């Protein structure tokens, strides 16, 4: 299945934008900056993304879809809930190490600049839907199989994602003394112990 040049160009814009936002900051980076990095005219750029705001929202959907697909792969595996927790943590931390711009964008741009993302474009959880849906599947399966405690969705979601996001934030600030992967086991255990049926 060969990918069309147009799709490749789009992916290029996305990865370049993420890198620049990570290096220089979201507000400082301009469209001409991104276009230059990709090697296209500004006019042509607007054929792919009509404005910086639209690009900003599309990036959230892109990252959520990526994360959603990864979690879906884990959800579909015939492994225990405990093993799934470990797999999700591992996947998330791997992305933090190898593709840091993605998670950084999510934590430092999406969560921190709500004024960019509200107002109809990314209402509620609209843009992060693919990611949230897969977490819902994970929780639903876990309770159905009798492994996770039945509780309010947001209590569980906040515990899982808040914890991971916090660890990745500390990692990004270079505060963690040990390499990120050395925390995977204890963090997975903490999450599973907090959520499981007692």
């Amino acid at each position, binding site marked *: 299945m060969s990918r069309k040049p147009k799709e490749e160009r789009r992916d290029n814009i996305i990865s370049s934008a993420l890198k620049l936002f990570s290096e220089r900051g979201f507000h400082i980076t301009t469209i001409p900056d991104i276009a230059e990095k990709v090697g296209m005219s500004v006019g042509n750029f607007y054929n792919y993304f009509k404005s910086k705001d639209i690009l900003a929202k599309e990036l959230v959907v892109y990252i959520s879809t990526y994360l959603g697909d990864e979690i*879906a792969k884990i959800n579909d595996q015939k492994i225990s809930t405990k093993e799934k927790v470990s797999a999700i943590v591992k996947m998330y931390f791997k992305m933090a190490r190898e593709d840091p711009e993605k998670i950084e964008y999510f934590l430092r741009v999406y969560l921190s600049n709500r004024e960019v993302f509200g107002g109809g474009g990314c*209402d*509620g*959880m*609209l843009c992060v*839907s*693919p990611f*949230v*849906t897969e977490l*819902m*599947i994970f*929780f*639903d399966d*876990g*309770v*159905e199989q009798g492994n*996770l405690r*039945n*509780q*309010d*969705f*947001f209590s*569980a979601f906040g515990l899982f994602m808040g914890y991971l996001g916090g660890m990745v934030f500390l990692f990004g600030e270079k505060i963690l003394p040990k390499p990120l992967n050395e925390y995977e086991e204890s963090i997975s255990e903490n999450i599973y112990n907090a959520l499981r049926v007692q």
Partner: protein
Amino acid sequence: MPYASSEKKPALIWLQGVTCNGNSHSFLNLPYLPQLLEKYEIIYHPLLEGTSTLHELVLNKAECDVLIFEGAYDPLMKRHNVSLKDIVTHYAGLAKYIIAAGSCASFGGMFKASAPERNTGLILNESEPQGPLLVIKQKVINLSGCPIHPEWLGFTLTMIADNREIPVDELNRPIELYSRLAHHGCTRNEYFEWKVDSKAFGLKEGCLFYEQGCRGPMTHASCNHILWNEVNSKTRAGTPCFGCTEPDFPRKNLFTTKTNMSIPVDIPVGISKRSYLALAGVAKTFHIKRLEGKLIDEKRNN
């Protein structure tokens, strides 16, 4: 082709097993009851006068073209001191059509619980094929519901009298009546679309699916299409649908929606959980002022 007036009217027997009589009473609410009764010769009915007494009936002296059976089937039960098993076997053999009127006769229903080890429907025991008439199941039409809606029986009897085919689903229920969901036509549909739940009972706003246990999206019934008593339905009156046309009626915790981490365990018929959550999970996080406020807001400034 409808029966010509010179032809003999089909003989109708209405027999009861373990029942509350709800289906008999519901049938009496049929708007065109007098006209329907003209098409049949009523041999026996629990409320209306028939040409045969109960005694004559159980002595197997009556004719039968259409047998209606109401209530759960209990093989040990007797009617007028005669074994129900014998009565049913005899008349089911004579009849061209057998109608299970209600969920008890269709699946066991409420009164399967009276003797769970032996009570069943005519051809189904909940959703398992089992029952006294299983060998002649092609003659049996299940009109499940607790009770049946009079028009469902009116439809079936009229189609039979007119010699028309009645295609049925895998549970032997007429597809014309049971293809819709109880959900279709509910006046709260917009709240379902945008996942706005009803905060409590007694409010016309909000959908009863998310918290109040409504089984509408999972139940095959025409309640919001053919209204009850020609005027209303449970959900329009703020009561959740209890899924009474399905083999698992009655379930438990009928006024509460079972959730796993706030995610409904049962979702609309035929839709994958992933698809449902992708749509529903997101929609639940929206705040739509019009749908969250009162429907008829007297303090509204125009």
